[in-house]
């Protein structure tokens, strides 16, 4: 019993309670199913807040550690190990925070097979939490792969017209990368004699050339998930076809599993390779930033635009991580959260308008400001947050990242040249262009389409869904200190492990 009541076990597996309850229901009992899912997700959020209240921000190490032997035979040392530190805590909170919001957004949108939908959704939440908390490579991989299955169904059953294509593409793309990571995990487990992450990090001693290959194998899985240019082509399909709630979770949390993986595994496990490959990763990140922005500009489907903008935003995160200094990594982690909130909010807003008009084409809109003022104002705030306006959350993360990348670009730094930071900064301007372009097309000017005249503004439920996100957009934008305080110690601990002179150069 004590084992079950361990805080992290509770957080991770509480959604299963909801799943079991849902299994008792029938698909026709839509209302109960929705409530069960919502309450489960809210309780999970509550538990995660409870964990937060106990979290010691000054401790850089893993907390609430659970460590049990799982398989201990013949040189196989697999543990059931969960732990939380400053790198994972915000992502866990983001997951538990976005899940009830996403569930609430499906109240009207999902009307078919409601029970199954909520069931997959809660399973997905469990998988994601497991990914962020697992401290054993094997366990991590199990959770990592597990998340594919519910997402596959969320896209495949409740998605748009080309949902099957998108679902299978999503599954195979991710699988192809992650199974390479599996090989690297196995190599580590067999050669180093353990799958337990802290032990592996402490042990070290992997020759640099081997590190290089292992780094690439892990990076294959994470880069596809992020997705980094040029491995991003599954993302627009998946986003466009996924139902709104699926898009919210996909953009909000699932993609972060990739960036989180880089921080959690690639940097501490293969520090030499990380330094060696940092410029390459930064280059890909910057290309992603510019490419994502450029392609976003040429979209006519709003959802696709936001999907491509994710490629651009997550490029920033990767750039921050591979600046390999405190500002960069901390900024990257905060930016993961920011992107989760702003893009999640954008997808929700797109979902709202789609439920009303059943189209996402720019040309079908225009002049909405006059019809739905509340909706327009909220969209404006979220858009500005997404493009990084000072005072809103996006700015804080991007600024820290650019600062970090600039610092890493000075002489002797891992990136070697400040050009990366410079081009990334150009990306910020491009973001302003495509986002304002979208806003202008949709909300300003005259009303061109007759049907748009009678659109209803947001109702209470929808406001309830979106307002919590707005709170965080302002909070992080105006007073980010508590967030950085949570992240900081763990990140500086991580940076100390890297064999770079940069951390000293900066101070």
């Amino acid at each position, binding site marked *: 019993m004590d084992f079950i009541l361990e805080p992290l076990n509770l957080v991770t597996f509480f959604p299963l309670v909801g799943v079991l309850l849902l299994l008792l229901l029938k698909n026709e009992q839509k209302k109960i199913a929705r409530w069960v899912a919502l309450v489960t997700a809210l309780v999970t959020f509550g538990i995660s807040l409870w964990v937060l209240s106990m979290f010691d921000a000054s401790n850089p190490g893993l907390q609430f550690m659970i460590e049990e032997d799982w398989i201990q035979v013949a040189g196989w040392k697999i543990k059931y190990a969960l732990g939380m530190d400053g790198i994972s805590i915000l992502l866990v909170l983001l997951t538990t925070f976005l899940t009830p919001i996403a569930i609430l957004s499906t109240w009207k949108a999902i009307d078919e097979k409601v029970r199954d939908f909520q069931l997959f959704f809660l399973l997905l939440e469990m998988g994601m939490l497991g990914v962020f908390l697992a401290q054993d490579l094997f366990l991590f991989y199990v959770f990592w792969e597990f998340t594919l299955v519910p997402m596959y169904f969320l896209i495949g059953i409740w998605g748009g017209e080309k949902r099957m294509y998108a679902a299978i593409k999503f599954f*195979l793309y991710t699988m192809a990368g992650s199974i390479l990571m599996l090989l690297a995990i196995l190599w580590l487990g067999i050669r180093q004699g353990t799958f337990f992450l802290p032990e592996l990090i402490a042990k070290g001693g992997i020759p640099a050339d081997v590190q290089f290959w292992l780094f690439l194998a892990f990076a294959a899985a994470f880069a596809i998930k992020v997705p980094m240019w040029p491995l991003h082509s599954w993302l627009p399909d998946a986003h466009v076809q996924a139902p709104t709630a699926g898009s919210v979770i996909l953009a909000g949390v699932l993609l972060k599993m990739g960036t989180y993986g880089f921080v959690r595994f690639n940097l501490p496990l293969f520090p030499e390779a990380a330094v060696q490959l940092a410029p390459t990763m930064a280059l890909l990140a910057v290309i992603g930033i510019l490419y994502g922005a450029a392609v976003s500009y040429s979209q006519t489907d709003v959802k696709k635009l936001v999907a491509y903008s994710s490629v651009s935003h997550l490029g920033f995160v990767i750039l921050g991580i591979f600046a390999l200094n405190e500002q960069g990594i901390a900024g990257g982690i905060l930016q993961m959260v920011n992107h989760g909130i702003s893009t999640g909010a954008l997808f929700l807003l797109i979902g709202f308008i789609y439920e009303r008009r059943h189209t996402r084409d720019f040309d079908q809109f225009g002049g909405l400001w006059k019809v739905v003022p509340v909706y327009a104002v909220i969209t404006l705030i979220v858009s500005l947050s997404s493009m990084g306006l000072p005072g809103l959350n996006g700015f804080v993360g991007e600024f820290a990242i650019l600062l970090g990348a600039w610092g890493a670009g000075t002489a002797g730094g891992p990136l070697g040249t400040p050009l990366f930071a410079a081009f990334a900064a150009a990306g910020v301007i491009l973001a302003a262009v495509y986002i304002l372009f979208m806003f202008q097309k949709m909300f300003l000017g005259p009303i061109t389409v007759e049907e748009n005249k009678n659109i209803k503004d947001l109702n209470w439920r929808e406001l309830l869904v979106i307002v919590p996100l707005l709170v965080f957009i302002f909070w992080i934008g105006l007073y980010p200190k508590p967030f950085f305080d949570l992240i900081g110690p763990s990140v500086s601990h991580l940076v100390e492990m890297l064999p770079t002179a940069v951390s000293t150069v900066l101070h």
Partner: protein
Amino acid sequence: MVDYLAILPEIALLVLAAILLLVDIRLKEEGKDTLNWIALFGLVITFVLTILLAQPGEEEVIWGGMLRHDWMAFVFRLVFIAGAAFTVVFSRGWEAIGDRGEFYGLLVLSTLGMTLMGAAGDLVMLLLAIETASIPLYIMAGFSTKDGKSAEAGFKYLLFGAMTSAVMMYGFSLLFGFGGTTDIYALADAIAAGNVPTLPLMTSIILVLVGFGFKISMFPFHFWSPDVYEGAPTPVTGFLSTASKAAGFAVLVRVMLVAFPSVTVEWQTLLAILSAITMTVGNLVALRQTNIKRMLAYSSIGHAGYILMGVAAASSLGVISVVYYIAAYLLTNLAAFGFVAIYYKQTGSDEIEDYAGFSRRSPGLAFAMLFTFLSLGGIPPLGGFFGKLLVFSAAIQADMVWLAVVGVLNAVIALYYYLTVIKFVYLRRQEGDEVPFPVAKSQSLAIIICVLGVTFLGVIMAPMFELAQKVASSFF
């Protein structure tokens, strides 16, 4: 003095076969359903007796080295008997086989041959065991004589089988010439003492491998399996693809590891290459199948490739991985063919397209099918995943990272066609998919057992792992 407890399962199977044939003569037409129950309970009792009474203690030699009573023999016995029991369940009500006493008799006899294959320690015994297992299978594959496809399947199976076993016999005779003995365990020393040059020895090994390769449908001896799998009655196909294949692997592992230690590197390389080709061919061709039985046939060629990876590692972990993979594969593939059998009985179709909307007709069965196919595709936390993990580990440990990479790429290809089936079951619809789908109680119970077993093997690995370790310990 022969330890009769050690061969208790074989005796029990023989008695069961005799009972089945005798009862069949006495039974009237309408009572033939009883045979199914007798066969099932007989097999279950044999299974339980084997676990209770026939566990190996000290390594024992029976009949002057003809049989070995070790963990290898023990675990594979359980695999075969379980496979036969599930096959009996899925044969229920299957036209032209489900109510025929000979069918069950043949099935049990074939199982007997397989248990002997798993235990054989002498080339003579090996020959007899392989043929005892195969000849009933030829008949079973061609059992529906009125169905042209079935007869053709049995005929092709027999032709390929007879041919490859003739080649294998020639290999045996050469081995006898090199070693002067037919005892597999004495062969290694005799070959070492006789200073047999590598080339002739490898030639005879290859000849022997032809026979084994046929059983496990290894490239290039896999051509028979799609045709035979498609044509044979589906329950028989399930048996062929699991128990019969497992028997081939049992023999392969034992003979390779025990008899040819002097040329380990050579046969390792050979098997590694064959493994890579086998799985690539199997999976690539499976991609463009529209008939689910053919698809599963090619996929099972792919799985043979993965298991070969474990054999090629020639290590303790390698043997462990082979045993674990086979255990997981047995349950999954039996369930997979179980669905195909149940579905065919209802709808008369084996086309993947016709599975559209299945999740609406029978949510439970579709859910089990999802588990099964995800396990075949190697998604955690299911048994197939851990099996794959172990074979990859074995390859990595044996410094064959390239083979592991080939395996990994294959896993992605395989996932694609498994997802295709799931796609039809879950995401497509068709007319009339509101009609509920009746399933016999015993059959849904069998499928539940398979699915639970697969999940168990994926979540709590230790018990099976320890068993597999014991198997490995009799070789290393």
